């Protein structure tokens, strides 16, 4: 088990280093720091100002290692900074990126965690229901509704909900945020509703496939042959054994809860990491975008390694693959 754990963690570290290299190629080799400086300062500034800006942001070193500069170059700098979580200052407005991340994580999580749980607790029961009535009209209707729900762009869900529920019916505020826990629910209701609606079609279809695959197995047939009721088969045999594939799918989504939702936060005025990323995209702020991609991948890799290790713990076959 120890050997497996070390091997799995080593691979995870390699993947993170690979991501960092990819980001370096994208944000330093393809777009040179000069381009970034010009974008931040404007096209018509003198070279001396650009040089000064590059020094302030630590972009003034040669890109790749070479004779005489094996450690003093952008590539090594990029790795060192990212791995020690020293993200520096934003290209666009010079605020420390770490501060913005710590400020944005809270609002993001207050949106994504309830959204995630609610999607789970509506998607799985509905999919179980549809799978319970498989090969009947309820099943067919459920699948058609799921496909219909999947085919609507999330932009339309957002705009439609804001117009219908926010503007016409006045049930909830159209957008906004508050840290007061008594008011926050009113602000979060609409984005969470839209998030659940836009994801539920795909969720139902995916979970239904998992449940149907499980209900075609031999032990389910045996249980049925022994006279076990259909409701008991679904809840005890099929559902519990589907938990493994379901968990894999669900655990993968958890790391990205932290990075928030670009669309929902931006449209509904929630000052989280997603909204921050959208601002960075619109302001050509490469440093923030780079950092967010890195943090997202890091969380994802950590989540994957932990999942795999827990599998290895329960299932000896995984360890010897």
């Amino acid at each position: 088990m120890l050997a497996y754990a070390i091997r799995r963690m080593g691979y995870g570290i390699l993947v993170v280093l690979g991501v960092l290299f990819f980001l370096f190629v994208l944000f330093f080799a393809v777009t040179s720091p000069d381009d970034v400086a010009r974008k931040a300062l404007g096209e018509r500034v003198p070279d001396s100002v650009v040089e000064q800006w590059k020094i302030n942001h630590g972009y003034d070193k040669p890109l790749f290692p070479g004779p005489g500069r094996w450690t003093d170059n952008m590539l090594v700098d990029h790795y060192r900074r990212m791995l020690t979580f020293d993200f520096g200052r934003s290209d666009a407005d010079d605020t420390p990126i770490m501060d913005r991340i710590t400020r944005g994580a809270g609002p993001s999580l207050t949106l994504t965690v309830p959204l995630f749980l609610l999607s789970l607790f509506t998607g799985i029961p509905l999919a179980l229901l549809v799978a319970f009535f498989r090969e009947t009209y309820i099943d067919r209707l459920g699948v058609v509704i799921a496909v219909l729900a999947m085919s609507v762009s999330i932009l339309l869900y957002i705009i439609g909900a804001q117009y219908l529920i926010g503007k016409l019916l006045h049930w909830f505020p159209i957008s906004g945020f508050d840290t007061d826990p008594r008011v926050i629910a009113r602000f979060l209701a609409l984005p969470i509703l839209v998030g659940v609606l836009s994801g539920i079609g795909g969720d139902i279809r995916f979970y239904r496939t998992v449940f149907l695959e499980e209900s075609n197995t031999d032990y389910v047939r045996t249980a049925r042959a022994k006279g076990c009721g259909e409701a008991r088969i679904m809840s005890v045999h099929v559902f519990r054994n589907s938990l493994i594939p379901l968990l894999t799918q669900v655990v993968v989504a958890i790391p990205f809860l932290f990075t928030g939702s670009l669309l929902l936060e931006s449209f509904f005025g929630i000052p989280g990491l997603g909204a921050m990323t959208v601002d960075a995209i619109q302001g050509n702020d490469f440093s923030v975008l780079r950092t967010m991609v890195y943090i997202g991948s890091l969380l994802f890799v950590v989540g994957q390694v932990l999942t795999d290790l827990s599998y290895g713990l329960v299932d000896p076959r995984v360890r010897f693959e």
Partner: protein
Amino acid sequence: MESHVVSNWVVVALGLASLAAIVLVRRSRIWSDAFVQLWRRRRLALFVAGIYVGIALLDSVAWVGGADGNADAVSVHESRSVIDRLFGGNQERSYSAPFADVEFYGAQPLAHPGSHILGTDLIGRDVFYLALKGARVALLIGGLTSLLAIPLALLFGVSAGYFGGRIDTVVFFVMSTLASMPGLLLLIALIMVMGKSTFAVCVALAVTGWVGFCRIARGETLKLRELEYVSAARALGVSELQIVMRHILPNLMHLVIITFVLMFSGLVLSEAILSWLGIGVDGSWGQMIDQARNELSRDPIVWWNISAAGIALFGLILAVNFIGDALRDVLDPRTLQGNE
């Protein structure tokens, strides 16, 4: 070469390719049976998708000249497609409601009263015409991206699965690296770095999209290479390349088709999100939705713009999703066994 000439040749190439595909499908029992089944199950969806393809093709065939009398001097030298010639050219100054005779705000008389069946937008363009133009953009995004992503995924997936060893290690590492980055952010980063253009958007979508299919192709190849007929071919001295071309690739074709259709709707929906961020493709439905999103807060509201773009987008995605669903049932042997 000018862009309209390229686009005309693409239409010719597409026509020849679909003829070749029809001939190939008719020759093989499995494939023609599958398409008969698909036709029986999804007649309406295929019909709707066919309309979209037809509009896109009509919008791709373009030529210079033949402008009507009231065209200005510039448009005489511009290439215009069939759709441009049929529906373009009735420009207004600002918003007008469907079938209206006067402008929506201010009630100034229109230049072409009653001719705008879906009204006009902020700068007076005919919304029906814009919605038709979006079909070509959507199919271009889906088609070009798939054309880039699927061969790439097949190449890497099959060689990783078939040869294993060091190739597999490298391909698997690249896949895990790309898959661990948040998809939408990676997409945005790529487009921002490459600069905003239709081709850049497609390349970025392909870079983020090929991993999923590569994983499927690799897994399936791993299974296929252990089968008896592959061992038999190897024992008979058939070369590795021949085995891959004869015995592996044809057995992946059904996955290629299923993936293409399932990927297509995701790509078009992603483009809508990119449009909202201001880095989408010009003339797409996503861009129309983005431009129209403040119109619902006007008073009285302007509803026709966003509805036209939204319904056009929804119709295409829905048809493609229904076709993809049925294709999976018809072509995937695993689901076939499940039904029997």
